[in-house]
């Protein structure tokens, strides 16, 4: 068998975005030996692309804000499918996590009183997002990266871990490869934290980066853990649509938070026509009140800032009705509503992005925008307090974990999710390993099987090209498992995914093992196909429309599905889906949800 290096730690963290960095920092603080392993260079993870801000009820701008209101907004935004305990912990702990970043050197924008400023975002009753212009994710990842460096945490960059190794029922290691050399590597450990982020690269139009191939979901399912509500994929309403080569790149919700409005080809602010019953009480039904809301929260919120699932569906409907923009989106106009200086100051990277990639000056003309695959609302099933999966020694935090966001995540709740549950993962993984003796032995047979699988694309006698398989998968998920779904199309998608899996078994990689992107892609396709199948199975089983899951054949939310998670497990070669009740809510939290306005 091919030789491989072996490293030994108490805890390994796979993925170095916000959640992984925060987990490693916490494990280090708890005094256990921790390694942070990431498939890109440090500081390049998808977190870097987060723009608008980080939601935390600090009450710096609106004193009326508190964790109870944040909890309520998160649950309602998630169409009540959320894990209530996660939503409670998140709302309570976010402010402390923001302030902690400041202690580590983060420089957020300020209020007039010198405190951390907070901005408006969709679904949040009060201006709640701590931010740095429109590059908050960069500030978060850089601050955590610099903190991890200061603590001397061991970081293994461009190291892609592809298989988990188990000792009986518990996780005891992982096997992967170095991208630069193609050499193999094994980690021996007592616990693994998965913080690998999202899955957007399975779709054609996505805001997600190269890394978002769902590796953690596949690792977890393959190791015997469960995923929930995978069908609830968030399509962000505003991605760029033109020119074709940049289609999908994110346009921050901050544009609407700072006063921008959506218009159709007739110049109408169409969102007033799409206010669902569920949000009527808190949403302005006329332009005057909507515009007044920015300055005075006694008014009801503008429908431009309804939760993302509502806005994405509305844009989809406008385009279908023939009222779209020239390139198949709608218009997002801030130019006519705010002064040029204000726009450049509040939204510098949007200004830059449109100027350089589309030749559009957003201080002078409207942007063209449309929905783009953005976020995995579901994910690995975890215990709310500890982030533990059902597999001993396996934890998950950040986008890869499910539950907090229910059927639809509110903007700004992702960055706070990363640090709240990243910290908890590090804390509880450390606690778990302290109760164990040494790391279990790495079973030679499992390692050998993993190594053989990783190297198989070189030895293959097939002729399939990994880039072609990826392109076909993206086409399939975009057209058959997109924003609006039907039973027939979902069944067709399952058939296509099965064919793609057969093609992947015949994939052939040319060239050597040193930094070979065709090989990297061939291996990541296993994760993308697993995720795609899980999403499609969940989407077939959930015969209703809720949050990030819309069925044309079941267009309304159905109470029978409002209290169940779609749970995905691996059964041999295949995946299986089952409906299981969500945890019952505590009475005091129920009261918070019922409270009107």
């Amino acid at each position, binding site marked *: 068998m091919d030789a491989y290096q072996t490293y030994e730690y108490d805890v390994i963290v796979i993925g170095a975005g916000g959640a992984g960095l925060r987990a490693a920092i916490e494990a280090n603080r708890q005094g256990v030996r921790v390694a942070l392993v990431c498939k890109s260079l440090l500081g390049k993870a998808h977190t870097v692309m987060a723009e608008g801000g980080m939601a935390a009820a600090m009450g710096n701008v609106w004193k009326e804000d508190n964790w109870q209101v944040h909890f309520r907004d998160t649950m309602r935004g998630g169409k009540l499918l959320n894990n209530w305990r996660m939503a409670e912990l998140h709302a309570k702990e976010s402010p402390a996590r923001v302030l902690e970043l400041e202690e580590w*050197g983060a420089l957020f924008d300020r209020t007039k009183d010198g405190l951390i400023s907070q901005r408006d975002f969709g679904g949040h009753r009060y201006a709640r997002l701590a931010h740095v212009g429109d*590059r908050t994710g960069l500030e978060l990842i850089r601050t955590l990266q610099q903190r991890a460096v200061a603590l001397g945490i061991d970081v293994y960059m461009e190291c892609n871990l592809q298989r988990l190794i188990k000792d009986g029922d518990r996780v005891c290691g992982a096997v992967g490869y170095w991208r630069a050399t193609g050499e193999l590597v094994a980690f021996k450990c007592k616990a693994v934290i998965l913080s690998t982020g999202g899955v957007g690269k399975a779709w054609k139009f996505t805001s997600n980066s190269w890394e978002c191939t769902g590796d953690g979901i596949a690792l977890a399912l393959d190791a015997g853990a469960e995923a929930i509500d995978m069908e609830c994929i968030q399509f962000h309403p505003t991605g760029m649509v033109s020119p074709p080569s940049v289609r999908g790149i994110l346009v921050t919700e901050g544009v609407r938070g700072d006063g921008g409005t959506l218009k159709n080809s007739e110049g109408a602010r169409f969102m007033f026509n799409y206010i669902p019953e569920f949000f009527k009480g808190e949403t302005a039904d006329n332009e005057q009140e909507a515009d007044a809301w920015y300055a005075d929260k006694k008014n009801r919120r503008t429908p431009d800032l309804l939760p993302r699932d509502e806005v994405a569906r509305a844009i989809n409907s406008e385009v279908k009705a023939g009222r779209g923009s020239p390139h198949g989106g709608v218009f997002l106009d801030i130019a006519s509503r705010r002064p040029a200086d204000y726009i450049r100051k509040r939204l510098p990277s949007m200004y830059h992005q449109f100027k350089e990639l589309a030749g559009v000056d957003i201080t002078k003309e409207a942007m063209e925008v449309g929905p783009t695959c953005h976020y995995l609302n579901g994910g690995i099933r975890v215990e709310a307090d500890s982030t533990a999966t059902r597999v001993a020694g396996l934890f998950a935090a950040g986008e890869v974990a499910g539950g907090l966001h229910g059927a639809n995540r509110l903007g700004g709740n992702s960055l706070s999710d990363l640090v709240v549950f990243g910290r908890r993962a590090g804390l509880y993984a450390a606690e778990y390993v302290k109760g164990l003796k040494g790391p279990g032995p790495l079973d030679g047979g499992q390692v050998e099987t993993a190594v053989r699988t990783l190297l198989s694309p070189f030895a293959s006698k097939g002729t399939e090209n990994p880039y072609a398989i990826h392109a076909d998968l993206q086409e399939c998920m975009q057209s058959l498992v997109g924003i609006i779904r039907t039973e027939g199309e979902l069944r067709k998608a399952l058939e296509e995914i099965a064919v793609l899996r057969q093609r992947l078994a015949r994939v052939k990689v040319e060239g050597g093992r040193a930094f070979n992107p065709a090989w990297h892609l061939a291996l990541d396709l296993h994760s993308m196909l697993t995720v795609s199948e899980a999403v499609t199975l969940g989407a077939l089983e959930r015969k209703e429309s809720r949050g990030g899951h819309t069925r044309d054949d079941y267009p309304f939310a159905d109470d029978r599905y409002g209290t169940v998670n779609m749970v995905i497990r691996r059964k041999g070669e295949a995946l299986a889906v089952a409906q299981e009740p969500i945890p019952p809510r505590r009475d005091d939290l129920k009261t918070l949800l019922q409270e009107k306005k």
Partner: protein
Amino acid sequence: MAPANVTMRVWRGDAKGGAFKDFQVPAAEGMVVLDVIHTLQATQAPDLACRWNCKAGKCGSCSAEINGKPRLMCMTRMDIFQRGETVTVSPIKTFPLVRDLVTDVSYNYEKAKEIPAFTPGPKEPDGTRRMWQEDVERSQEFRKCIECFLCQDVCHVIRDHPENKTQFAGPRFLMRIAELEMHPLDVNDRLELARARAGLGFCNITKCCTEVCPEHIHITDNALIPLKERVVTEDYDPLVWLARKLSRSK
């Protein structure tokens, strides 16, 4: 737009050797250099090595030299070149080659470790941290840095003299020192580090770093020159040095 071809000349090879290779790729509306590289991978050169993550100018992974100029491949539109012009893409020169367009940038991660961490002073009596927008903006400009390392690549102190790498941190990390020095809360003193170990004196403010910065940070004017001024003031005036020390440790 009629589908025309573009001619790309791309470096292929590793530390042992290599050569430029020419490719013809169909042009598409609005495409950037990274799109062309992706097309090449999918159709003609599956093992062509390049780093990329976000394809939106936010992560700083896809740095290369395009027609000799350090740039991000994802933010370089093909329509800035003349029709029919051959577009040459080579790896950034200052760092050791791994393969094709990928280089070993570990120098930068090592330099980052040498800078003492952010160290805040005491909180306000009411337990808060208060800073004013105009004060945070100075360091915020430097925190826009996406660590593409193009400024490091272009800096002649290490580009033409690799032997200087041991004694010179490069514009990116001198700017990081300036950022911490100007941070309203930080009480650490890194001026001696900037002068001695990070090699600030090597910089003769030719502004090459500022010119290539994709984030348009004024590296030279706002970070390096003020840092030089602070170092000089302390070096020549022990009273200033002492006064600063005292005011910081308050």
